């Protein structure tokens, strides 16, 4: 048996390596303030300032009184914090005869955003699923048209859509607006869902078919539970898009449904004497609050979903 001769050999090696000059040992020292770190964090901080500056200015200005704003520096923090602009923006800013600020638009926005988001995502996800897993002749052609549609400026489409909605008899109704949001959300959402579902292992889909599951069963029981990230992405995109929409909200509905952005536009654009910057800023922040909130809450999933749905090697 040759089992043990390596031991002696090792001992010899050991002896030899002991003679090796001692030198650095352990982890390579890393200074916290290395040039590289200064460069990276320095850049990031400068960039972060650029991104934060407008928000900072908005918040600061909205907390100042008009006299203080007139005195100048928009970057200076308020000497005296006042929430009056917020109150005014929310409850008493006027447009025409209506002096109830953004508040009346808020619930309209909710009433528009929630169903529009749900309907558009529901439809787009089913489309994406059909495209990714149940390809049939011609599907790709329609999809290509749809994608090219993503590039068409909305303004161009207003007239044809007015005609379509009129012919369907739903012009001016909430249904009509939901339909419009669904239509314009469809290209990019369908693309996202299609890429996402195509990225799921195809064998899973095959297994479910062998198990006897049909189109809808597979969609609801297999695909949906696996698709949280992409639904979050779609949700964020739609909530932001629909909540921020002004044009469709005002063109395709009637005043009782006008979303918050219409009020925002009215407040910001109805100059009564001097511009009340503080109220405008407060109104702006209030209007952006919902999408911002959605972002902060689900931002992490957003990045994951983007990675899964939008970016294909």
């Amino acid at each position, binding site marked *: 048996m040759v089992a043990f001769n390596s031991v002696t050999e090792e001992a010899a090696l050991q002896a030899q390596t002991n003679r090796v000059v001692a030198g650095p040992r352990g982890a390579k020292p890393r200074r916290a303030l290395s040039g590289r770190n200064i460069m*990276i964090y320095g850049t*990031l901080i400068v*960039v972060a300032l650029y*991104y934060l500056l*407008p928000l900072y200015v908005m918040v600061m200005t909205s907390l100042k009184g008009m006299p203080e*704003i007139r005195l*100048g*520096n*928009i970057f200076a923090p308020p000497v005296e914090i006042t929430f009056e602009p917020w109150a005014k923006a929310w409850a008493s800013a006027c447009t025409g005869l209506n002096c109830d600020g953004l508040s009346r638009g808020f619930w309209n926005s909710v009433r528009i955003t929630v169903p529009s988001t749900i309907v558009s995502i529901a*439809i787009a996800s089913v*489309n994406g699923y*059909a*495209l990714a897993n*149940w*390809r049939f002749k011609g*599907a*790709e052609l*329609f*999809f*290509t*048209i*749809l994608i*090219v*549609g993503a*590039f*068409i*400026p*909305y*303004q*161009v*489409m*207003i*007239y*044809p*859509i007015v005609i*379509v909605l009129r012919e369907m008899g739903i012009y001016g109704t909430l249904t009509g607006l939901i339909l419009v949001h669904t*239509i314009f959300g*469809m290209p990019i959402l*369908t693309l996202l869902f299609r890429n996402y579902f195509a990225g799921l292992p195809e064998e899973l889909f095959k297994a479910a078919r062998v198990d006897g599951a049909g189109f*809808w069963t597979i969609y609801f029981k297999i695909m949906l539970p696996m698709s949280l990230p992409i639904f979050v992405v779609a949700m*964020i995109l739609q909530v*932001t898009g629909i909540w*921020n929409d*002004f*044009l469709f909200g005002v063109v395709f509905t009637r005043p009782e449904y006008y979303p918050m*952005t219409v009020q925002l536009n009215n407040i910001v654009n109805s100059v009564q004497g001097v511009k009340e910057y503080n109220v405008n*800023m407060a109104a*702006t922040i209030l*209007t*952006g609050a919902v999408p*911002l909130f*959605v*972002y*902060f809450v689900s*931002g992490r999933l957003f990045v994951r979903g*983007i*990675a899964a749905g*939008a970016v*294909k*090697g």
Partner: protein
Amino acid sequence: MAGYTQGSGRPNQWLRNLNAKIASVPMILTAVVIFLGGTIWTVVYSFTNSKLLPRLSFVGLDQYERLWAAPRWLISVQNLAIYGIFSLIFSLLIGFVLAALMDQKIRFENTFRTIMLYPFALSFIVTGLVWQWLLNPEFGIQSVVRSLGWESFTFDPLYNADIVIYGILIAALWQGTGLVMCLMLAGLRGIDEDIWKAARVDGIPMWKTYIFVVIPMMRGVFITTLVIIASGIVKVYDLVVAQTSGGPGIASEVPAKYVYDYMFQAQNLGQGFAASTMMLITVAIIIVPWAYLEFGGGRKRV
């Protein structure tokens, strides 16, 4: 081996995948009726002299002749070209550099990412307003710098016809680069760790690895990003309206605004449609070959 039960002949092709077809009806309708139908409708009416309401009274290429003679249209096209090129370059550049920085296993990654991404949650209207304030020479950045002592400091892009489009660009980049950064970051995270290791063993400096190895590997991500940015560029409208309303003068006009203004303010639908058609043609020239390669033909399953 005799006696196979026959039957189960080839079923009607239309009925196969019926559910999938039914489920795709909304998409097909949207594609055909709205996007295709709307486009054809638009093109057809661009050859008419429709005013407030669409009318089928054809006038040949008159609308196009007028369009290409209109200084405002020419400026719009020029602006879009400048805005488009710079916005593409800078979005990709800034987005990539930021993503590369974020990819250095930094601390507070989440915080930085949120900061860069939050403007994307805000509408162009809001973005335009905020930057209009910030760039206002009377109380914005210029006045602040002046009050610090640099009396001759001038930074009023929105009031200078020569550079106004760059003022809009600043706001657009503020709003959109976060998303680009996210896309790029996702792309970078998809790169095989081993490539980095191989490059380190080969002694290739980090920046060279990015330029010669990593960026070429991210072709797909770049294309997706390009599509997203490009579709936004063509549609740019709200931002201009909110920031400058096309001013000073007509120095920051863009095609989408031309379309809208002529369709609704000037009540000259024909002119608006002609301008839309020109935009559509531009888009088609850029997009259709790409869309075909990406989604049409080839690569079929099932």
